[in-house]
């Protein structure tokens, strides 16, 4: 048997393992959470945004936090699959690139729910796109929200294209070696007739490179656009030129945490230790630590800036409100303290530490968006307008539901789509 055949058979055999009890249990839980998500979405649209905890002044809360959270997670996937590709880090990037691209696509799906759902009148969400309407009015491009619409739809489209194009050779392989005629027909549909002819491969390589080159600046630009939702506003804590690099760093930080949270169980359950190696996890942990420092630098600049500038609104928020806030200190614990453990090689090589640490980082990054968005609004310029905020069960249910929906999509993906880029790993042999 040739080396190529060995790799091919080994990987496909592991990926095609029949779903065990774990898969079904997880599927049930995620399925239930997904149903909850859609039920709560329907309830919100039918009844009104009042079923959430938002109020005046905290008019943005969970929905926008979730939006930024999920988009941010998506960015690490693109970072790994596109940027590391361009930087020719294929040795350790390749085995996880399919997983991370998938993570991106599904994370963006979660994120994309919210710009529509959080609207008071979501049935008019299409007014954010320029089309000739009877009112003779168009979207207003000085606002960051049409930028969001453009950036997120671009990011989603490019991510899907990049993900799909990369997958075509593997889908063709699944078509050719499918177990049942029905599976073969399904894979044939998505493999769109790929034969592996040299013309296709030539074009494919360039397309993949082009898409990676387009996805790379998207990593920076999309989350910078998302951060501009806040940066262009006058709210304290929002109105800062720090936001784009701070947010992009935070996005990749939270994304790497999610990569680890996904890769470690997949590696364990599908016995892929020799593919998703300790070295790869180690490198992810290193990047996690590096991006943690970008975020930590952001915290330092924000608070030191409030101290030095002496602007009353910032002082009230950064130096008055934050130190008294449980959310703030939890965030610091998760985003500043926890990542420091990854200076230790032993920590980077321990899947338990990586997994738990990553979960805490995800918590910390969610809380960071809460601290920025909600607390900034609660301590705005005019003290008489200061208020308070408390989430409702619907808020929490929707957040939990997006995790369930994400998990559901990911479980289905694991079942039916090759989650290790077999052709790329074969290429490494040559």
């Amino acid at each position, binding site marked *: 048997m040739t080396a190529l055949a060995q790799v091919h058979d080994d990987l496909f055999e592991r990926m095609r393992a029949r779903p065990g009890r774990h898969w079904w249990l997880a599927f049930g839980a995620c399925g239930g959470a997904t149903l909850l998500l859609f039920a709560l979405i329907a309830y919100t649209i039918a009844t009104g945004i009042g079923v959430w905890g938002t109020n*005046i002044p905290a008019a943005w809360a969970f929905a926008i936090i979730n939006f930024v959270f999920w988009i941010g997670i998506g960015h690490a996937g693109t970072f790994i699959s596109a940027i590391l590709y361009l930087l020719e880090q294929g040795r350790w990037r390749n085995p996880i690139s399919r997983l991370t691209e998938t993570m991106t696509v599904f994370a963006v799906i979660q994120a994309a729910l919210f710009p529509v759902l959080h609207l008071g009148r979501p049935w008019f969400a299409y007014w954010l796109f320029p089309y000739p309407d009877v009112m003779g009015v168009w979207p207003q491009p000085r606002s960051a929200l049409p930028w969001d619409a453009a950036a997120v739809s671009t990011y989603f489209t490019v991510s899907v294209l990049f993900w799909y194009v990369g997958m075509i050779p593997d889908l063709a392989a699944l078509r050719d070696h499918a177990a049942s005629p029905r599976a073969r027909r399904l894979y044939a549909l998505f493999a769109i007739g790929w034969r592996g002819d040299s013309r296709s491969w030539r074009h494919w390589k360039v397309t993949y490179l082009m898409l990676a080159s387009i996805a790379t600046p998207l990593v920076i630009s999309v989350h910078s656009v998302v951060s501009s939702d806040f940066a262009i*506003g006058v709210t304290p804590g929002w109105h800062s030129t720090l936001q784009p690099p701070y947010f992009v760093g935070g996005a990749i930080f939270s994304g790497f945490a999610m990569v680890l949270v996904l890769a470690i169980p997949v590696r364990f359950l599908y016995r892929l230790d020799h593919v998703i190696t300790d070295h790869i996890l180690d490198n992810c942990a290193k990047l996690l630590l590096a991006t943690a420092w970008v975020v930590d630098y952001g915290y330092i600049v924000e608070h030191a800036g409030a101290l030095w500038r002496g602007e009353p609104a910032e002082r009230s928020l950064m130096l008055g409100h934050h130190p008294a806030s449980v959310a703030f200190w939890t965030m610091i614990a998760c985003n500043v303290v926890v990542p420091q453990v990854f200076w230790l090689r032993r920590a980077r090589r321990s899947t338990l530490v990586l997994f738990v640490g990553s979960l805490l980082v995800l918590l910390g990054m969610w809380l960071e968006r809460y601290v920025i968005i909600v607390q900034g609004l609660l301590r705005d310029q005019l003290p008489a307008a200061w208020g308070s905020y*408390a989430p409702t069960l619907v808020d929490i249910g929707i957040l939990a539901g997006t995790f369930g929906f994400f998990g559901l999509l990911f479980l289905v993906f694991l079942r039916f789509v090759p989650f290790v880029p077999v052709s790329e790993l074969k290429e490494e042999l040559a």
Partner: protein
Amino acid sequence: MTTSPLLPRHEVTRRDALKLLAAGIAALEAGCLSRAGDEDIVPYVADPPEHRPGVIVRYTSLLVHGGFGYGIVVDTRDGRPIKIDGNPAHPATAGGSTPWMQARILDLYDPQRGRGARMAGSPATWSAIARRLRELPPGPVWLVLPPHSSPTLAHLLERLARQRELHVVTDAPLDHRARYRGAAAVYGEPLEQQLDLARADVLVALDADVLAQPAWARAAAARRAPGTRMSRIWACEPMQTPTGTLADEHLLVHAGEVAAIAAALAAELGLAVPHAPHAWARRLADDLRRHRGRAAIVVGDRQPPVVHALARWIDHALGNVGGPVTLTRPALVDPLAGETLADLAAAAPRAVAVIVVDANPVYTAPRALDLARALAAAPFSLHAGTYADQTALACFAHVPLAHELETWTDARARDGTLAVGQPLVRPRFDVASAIDVVAALLDDRGDARALVRERFVDDAAWTTALRTGAVAGSQAPAVAAAPHWTPEAFAAPTGGGIEIALAESPQIGDGRFAGNAWLQELPHPITKQTWGNAALMSPATALALGVSDEDLVELTTPAGTLVVPALIAPVAGGTITVELGHGQIVPEVPIADRIGGDAYALRGPDGSCILRGSAKKVRGTRRLARTQTTLGEHGREVAPAAPVAHWLANPGLVAHLRGDQPSLLPPQNRDGVQWAMMIDTSICTGCSACMVACQAENNIPTVGPVEVARGRHMNWLRIDRYERDDATVVNEPMPCQMCEYAPCEYVCPVMATQHSPDGLNEQVYNRCIGTRFCSNNCPYKVRRFNWFGFEDTSSRALQYNPDVTVRSRGVMEKCTYCVQRIRRAEQRALVEKRAIAPGEVVTACQAACPTGAIQFGQLAERDTAFARMRSDGRRFEVLHELGTRPRTQYLAKITNPKESK
């Protein structure tokens, strides 16, 4: 060529078909016309003169409160009254309003008002009840009435008293008789104190919210411009009131201690009265001596008669009478006469009938009297009241009370000016007024109009009275009286425990307005609490009790107990204030039912509102629905204030808070008509009439206590209250600031908010998709969002202003500078081919404000109140440093404290 079974049996040619078709069409038309010809109808070409669709037709009328008349002007649309404003020609309002005046329009359409009379538990008609009244057997009849000044009612009662044995109980939950008793002690007869505050250099308020009366507020405001003529306001009270926020010298004391201050003051001025020296009183006496003959002392109704007597004596001692103070006979009819509720309770079983009109004594009277049992014991009891409240349920029969705008009334203002209130709309359901009830007892078939009209000499006087809203020259003449009084020793209130002071709610009064959603949701002028009351206490008292905001405390007096949440407020140490009117158990009035705590339960049989009792913390908390919880400026110069001496020495004090900031943006267009607003914080008392006026004008919904607690109240205009570091309190109304560089406009993704060429920040409701970015970017947080579908579909929607869109769920809304009024004026000016005159457009808040603190107009105006404010050196912008260039600007508050301590 076809043969149709419906047609004659021959072939139908094409020509035939066309002929038939034409004939058919002609037959159709002929059929229509012939229908008209068969039954003649006449087109409606001769409209009644008042019916002018789309035009606002205004009428005068009257509202009655505390027995006094308040003249109003009412806007009607298509025959439907929708907006109340004060009548400038009436001395009680001088054009201004109060929150309850603005809110009364809602009561007219309130679905909670009875839909019909009832008797013996089943529906009945008023005519059936009236027949019972006419056919009452001879015997004593007890009438419980609120204090009144109605000549018609007085005349009817006189007639009734001649016909049968009549006992009249004057029931005022918040007894006003103390001031008449005090006057009677000094003058030998109850005389009323009339005030001309424009002539007062010094105004002294002893536990009195003087400026709650709109006419007094307007007069006092005229003396607040900084300069040599600036007046000085002294106030001492157990809890800060709107008057207290304007006071230059403010002292928080126990309600029971006010008597000691009055005594000390009188002693300083020469009266031989037992007293203890009081530092504040000494300083006040010094100031009063410097302003002999140009001061006024006002005492609140809660204080015992001796304090009123002292104040009367002091007015005389200082020679104020004849200047700012005048004495007249009271406008109220027989304020001190009448029996008591205790007498009623004893006599009820032997009475032929007990009739309660416009009062709720089962709820408001001391519980020890057990009036419910007394009413049940009477052979026939009738309650004529706005709601089916506790008294109604205890009576045999109930008829809904007519709203003033549904019936003919007459009443006198406090100064005696008579006015007639005309109805503006037919009652939708069976109602009866006090005049109707007494007329029925008299078996007088005359209707209310005839009875009121009887009091007038001729048609011309009658018509003039109705058109202008007041009978000219009918104010009470001044009475020359000299004080003869030897005060006895009185004991300062002692006793263990803590003082509990019961106060009238500035929102729902003595509880009569508890069913009015606008008033329930109106933030308290001082605590900004809505929907309920609390145990209001100072920080020190809270510390001593071990409570913080929202912790439950149990208040106990000899009469009863009350559990309410605590709330820290500007209250004197060692006293707790609780407001009355809440905690009613009225299942048929959902807005009022079980909201807040029933403080009437604490009152003893003497009806005093100054109690001694105990307070202790109990387990549990209750959420308070407050609209503002942070009171300081926190380092931002948003509410500047200065003493007048400092201001005169530094006229550039707030110059750095106005003017155009440097900007990268092109200069905003200021050509043509440009609208702006000025608000003078020096004369804003925080009374909040403007807030209710805005609600009435702009169809603003109420959301209920749960939503207000969540931070979702909908008032477009709010009044921020700042407690500055120098202890000055500033009330700062916050409408939309109409920023020229509006931060809300550029963040809307769908262009639902934009700037008009005349300077308005416009919100386009039908384009808004509800992203709420505009609210996030508004530093003033003046934008409100429709979190649910808040629009009212009950009969209250009849009050909606047809010129203003009713907003649906998911849409942002905010103050528009009453754009509907601006456009209306523009259209009128366009039709009449002229420019809009200065002062032609008056916003709802501006019209309601009793002191004239809010002025609106065009930037190009000269010689108007608005233009004078624009050029005033006190002008500043809130959050000026943000560079928003707001068109709504303010005048800094200047106070006039006494220099020497």
